[in-house]
């Protein structure tokens, strides 16, 4: 699989986790792609942590409004019915449990639901931005990540080694190889890529992993 194919599998699968009416916050990068795969008949409301609800697609070239950007600073739009607010209210929404689902990337995620996504000591210290609040505050936390690093090392670990974004808050992990529920020190494989066996997935997964009795194949994008 190419990186792009992996990303599409992950984004499309996560989109199927969303329910009609959900308030959703998507992290920067891969999570942003989820917006392109919302199933028909499902309407969700995207929250942008820099201060609005009703985040819409990028504007046509030339229609950019410098006062309307997403959390990555890119030009976006606000859909009819959207609402703007300041950072205090934005994070009251996030921390107060008013966001139904957040989707974030990961450097590491573990079998206890710990997530490391914001720094590599001595190497990369961008800051946590809004991620710590999102992971603590959202009702459901979904991590979307490639199954392994570029060097092929596992990212689904027994215990995170990098500094955490939040402790024990992740509910679901979606990679190109499968969908995993976090269950107290073990990752339960709910769905798997049809081309891979459970054992093939286990080899590239450091976390203790068990296949759910009702294990299914992921429905891949056409």
């Amino acid at each position: 699989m190419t990186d792009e194919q992996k990303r599409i599998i992950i984004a499309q699968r996560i989109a199927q986790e969303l329910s009609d009416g959900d308030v959703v916050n998507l992290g920067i990068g891969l999570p942003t792609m989820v917006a392109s795969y919302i199933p028909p008949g499902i309407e969700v409301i995207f929250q942008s942590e820099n201060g609005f609800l009703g985040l819409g697609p990028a504007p046509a070239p030339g229609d950019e409004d410098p006062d309307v950007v997403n959390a990555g600073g890119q030009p976006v739009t606000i859909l009819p019915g959207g609402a703007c607010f300041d950072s205090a209210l934005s994070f009251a929404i996030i921390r107060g449990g008013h966001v139904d689902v957040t989707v974030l990337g990961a450097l590491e995620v573990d079998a206890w639901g710990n997530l490391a996504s914001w720094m590599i000591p001595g190497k990369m210290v961008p800051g946590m931005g809004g991620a710590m609040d999102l992971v603590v505050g959202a009702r459901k936390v979904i991590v979307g990540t490639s199954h392994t690093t570029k060097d092929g090392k596992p990212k689904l670990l027994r215990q995170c080694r990098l500094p955490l974004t939040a402790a024990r808050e992740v509910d679901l992990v979606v990679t190109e190889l499968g969908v995993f529920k976090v269950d107290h020190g073990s990752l339960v494989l709910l769905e798997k890529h049809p081309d891979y066996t459970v054992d093939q997935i286990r080899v590239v997964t450091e976390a203790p992993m068990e296949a759910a009795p009702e294990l299914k194949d992921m429905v891949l994008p056409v």
Partner: protein
Amino acid sequence: MPKILSIPEAVAKVQSGNTVMIGGFMTCGAPVNLIAELARRGVHDLTLISNDTGVQGDGVGMLISADAVTKLIASHIGTNPETGRRMIDGRLSVELVPQGTLAERIRCGGAGLGGVLTPTGVGTIAAEGKQEFVIDGRAYLLETPLRADIALIKAWKADRRGNLVYRRSARNFNPVMAMAADLVIAEVEEIVDVGELDPDQIMTPGIFVDVLTRSVSTDD
């Protein structure tokens, strides 16, 4: 009533060594003309409180490049590699604060509160050195207020009493910072007469604002 000053007159109020809050999320809603003038003026040893450090050479990034800042309190510095380099070099001391916590700490500073308890950061290095409380079975960190000598903020419209209206996602940290500094300087796109803004639509009451300045200078 706030004074209406030119950008250079307004920026002259900032002294080396001050603690300065600057509104904006990257360049969106940042008072870029005030920042540019401040970078040009050559102040130094500022403690800067802002969500991020803009990008290299724009927004708050201009102050980083101009060597004006020795201490930074922010939630994210990844969009400006210059900030990271200076932090690693030891030329810049950086305190990283989760974004929602940063907003609440500034709000506390402006609202006369001694702190808030937040669940954000529990079990992470953001909890280091902080008191932890368990309330109804959930753990929280005690986060303390932030205030500044001067806040530089950006609004869309002001009236001559300093009442402010922001536009879209350019609001962000500006309203809380307007409450939390001894001197508040607002860069605005337009100044209208008293009575032109509906009292219900004002987002920052004019009593918080000491100086108004226009993004683009026009005759007063």
